[in-house]
């Protein structure tokens, strides 16, 4: 057996959906945030896999795009966590089920 592209693709799909599952089913906002991270990383895996198995690896599109994704994801985490903290200050909770109002109660 040799490794082919679809191994990586299916693995990425599995990881993506695990992330999705977390985002859908957890109550804690922080967990939802890191579920999103899992999804982003799964996408990165796809980029790299396509790059490696693609036709023009010397253009380095895959790694470059992944780098950008990582940078954006870092920004996203920072802002996301700051929002979680702000929400926590406000509601005294990060439970997504209790965050169902847009204004102060």
């Amino acid at each position, binding site marked *: *057996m*040799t*490794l*082919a*592209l*679809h191994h*990586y693709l*299916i*693995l990425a*799909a*599995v*990881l993506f959906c*695990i*992330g*999705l*599952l*977390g985002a*859908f*089913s*957890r*109550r*804690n906002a*922080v*967990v939802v945030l*890191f*579920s999103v*991270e*899992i999804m982003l*990383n799964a996408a*990165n*895996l796809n980029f*790299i896999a396509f*790059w*490696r198995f*693609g036709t023009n*690896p*010397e253009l*380095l599109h*895959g*790694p*470059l795009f992944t*780098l*950008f994704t*990582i*940078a*954006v994801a*870092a*920004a*996203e*985490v*920072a*802002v996301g*966590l*700051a*929002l979680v*903290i702000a929400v*926590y200050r406000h509601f005294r909770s*990060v439970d*997504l*089920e209790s965050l169902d109002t847009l204004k102060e109660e």
Partner: protein
Amino acid sequence: MNEVTAFWILAAISVIGALVAVRKRNLVHGVFALLVFFAGLAGLFLLLLAEFIAVVQILVYAGAVGILILFAIMLTDRVTGKDAFRVTSRGSFWGAIIALAVFLVILLPTIREIPLIENATPKDMIVEQSSVKELGTKLIEPYIVTIEVLALLLTAALIGAVTAAQGGRASEKGENTE
């Protein structure tokens, strides 16, 4: 131990890490599972010869993001890191079903294309081609604007995060008295 074995081991590590991360009740354990997932993914990147990406993965995710999330947990939840009584949200069953549906939607075209992509073999790359140096040159040459924009984005995100997390001055004072 060849490439295939390595792939399966790393895949198992990442999948288990991710699963534990999203299912574990204890948040801090969850974060560490997430870090295991990141590490597994970094291994996969190494396997795909994207060495620099693997390093950045460890540096950014395992180093920075992990710590950031840990800090957020410490600042929000109780220090024990225990999640609320019920871990999953209402109707998480449907969430799982939809996640499964998404999986199928992603999977089906992939499987359909397998005959097409099976023959795509990785080219024998000279190490030079994926070297850090080459990557750096590429970043400067055609992608300089992107880099600058990213720098701007990160700065903005930093400022925004600080502002958002800090909250109003007044509320902060109120916070401290508690």
